[in-house]
């Protein structure tokens, strides 16, 4: 199995979820993160004093998939998350040794 982690723009999350559902993925875990990258941050002004916000809000999406599905899932996420503007984010894939569904104790692909 593989764990696919994607850092995406927050407003594409719904689209990514739908795309994954579309190709048969049954579960996703998402969380709020902040990203620092080429996109850069922005400046705010409070009571006349400027300050910089370096980290921009991003969403992290994690999907555990069968090795065979990994590429398909990566493509699906990339397609759904692409706006073409800087800051669209990254996807990376890490190997997973074991997976368990807590409720049933099922392991491996059955756990997905």
């Amino acid at each position: 199995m593989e764990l696919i982690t994607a850092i995406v723009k927050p407003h594409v999350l719904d689209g990514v979820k739908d795309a994954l559902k579309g190709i048969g993925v049954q579960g996703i875990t998402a969380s709020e993160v902040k990203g620092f990258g080429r996109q850069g941050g922005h400046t705010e002004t409070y009571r006349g004093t400027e300050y910089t916000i370096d980290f921009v809000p991003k969403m992290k999406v994690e999907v555990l998939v069968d090795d065979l599905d990994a590429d398909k899932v990566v493509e699906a996420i990339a397609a759904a998350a692409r706006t073409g503007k800087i800051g669209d984010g990254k996807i990376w894939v890490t190997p997973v040794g074991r997976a368990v569904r807590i409720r049933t104790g099922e392991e491996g692909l059955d756990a997905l």
Partner: protein
Amino acid sequence: MRRKLVVAATLVGLATVGMAGPAWAFDRPAEPDTQYILDNIFVFFAAVLVLFMQAGFALVEAGLTRAKSVANIMMKNLMDMSAGVLAFAAVGFSIAYGPEGNSFFGLGGWFLDPAGFDESSLTLATNFLFQAAFAATAATIVSGAMAERTKFKAYFLYSFAITAFIYPVVVRWMWGGGWLSQLEVPFGDFAGSTIVHSVGGWAALMGALILGPRLGKYGADGKPRAIPGHSIPFVVLGVFILFIGWFGFNPGSELAADLAVGDIAVTTLIAAATGAVAATLTIWVRSGYPDVGMAANGMLAGLVSITAGCGALDNWGAMWAGLIGGVIVVLSVQLLERRRVDDPVGAVSVHGVCGAWGTLAVGLFATKADGFVATEDAGLFYGGGLGQLGTQAIGVLAVFLFVTIASGLVFLLIRATVGLRVSEEEEIAGLDVLEHGAPGYGPDVVPTMDTAVRGAPRVPAKV
């Protein structure tokens, strides 16, 4: 006792024979008696209660919209009062109550010139204070309906326009002794269901229409989507403040300390209560849940619905006015939402629609004379026939037409010049950062990564 109309009549009487300037200098009594002083003190405290409503409006609007534009909505409420009071002092008060001009438009006494105003029942200062608080109310109603997408600069200009011009003209027609108060059966709007609330509500309608709905309010299928407000506690606190303020608004409109004050307060209380209960039950039946924001709207609906008739209706009439207002507000909010009028706070329904209903309710339930409603039992259900109801309908319609046209023109003019709506990018990001420089909540409340850096952890981290 009911001096309002007397004053108004005098005003217009004089105005129509063309008298002006010095002749107007009714000095305040040199040795005022305690009753005269009490009248002024009473209206002073009533005005303070009405001014407090600004806080209520700000909270209700802030609570029913999203956190990312919360500073903007608070700022609008601060500014429409500030700019509004100045505009009203400079010209609005004169357009409404000025010694010259005519039945449609007052003139003279600009900049609160004391020579221009009669002080025989209240001093100019007391009178202005109370009226200015009303003007600020009419202005501030609009900000909620236009929330989350209007340029701050544009709103600033609009609030000048409504307090300097649109609202005063309508006041002139009625409390300024103009044509509505001179109809055969005079128009009955004791404290301003139409004159104040509908003015705000219809301007809000035009604002919402011309702006269009917020991004994401309607799905690709055209169906409305819920955009939950960010703080129900703010909404309910705001409603409690408005409720309190209304005891300045309605009883204060008596413009004299007398025994009617208590009666008016009780009709106000009853309508507020029935409005809240009725709206709660209505939305409960329709959606399966006693929605809190809707209950809050319901109390306001009850209050708006009794504002015109708080003096002319008895307790039973107040109950009906409030109860029906509470039902109407729910139906109206849902109807407008379906019709793609995106009014995040329900301002059009609460103030516009229920303002109209409250005004018509006088034609149905009026049983006491109140200084405007001239006879007892003028309401249809009390055997008064259709006379009062007809007048009420005329007033509702006239104000609707004037306000929608005038405010529509103002909004179009602003759109054509400084622009009315923020960019899509800004709307998504929220108005606070791009319009005002910084978010309305610090990074330690709506957490951002900076919490770590500047806000620092709240918990003693054994650094």
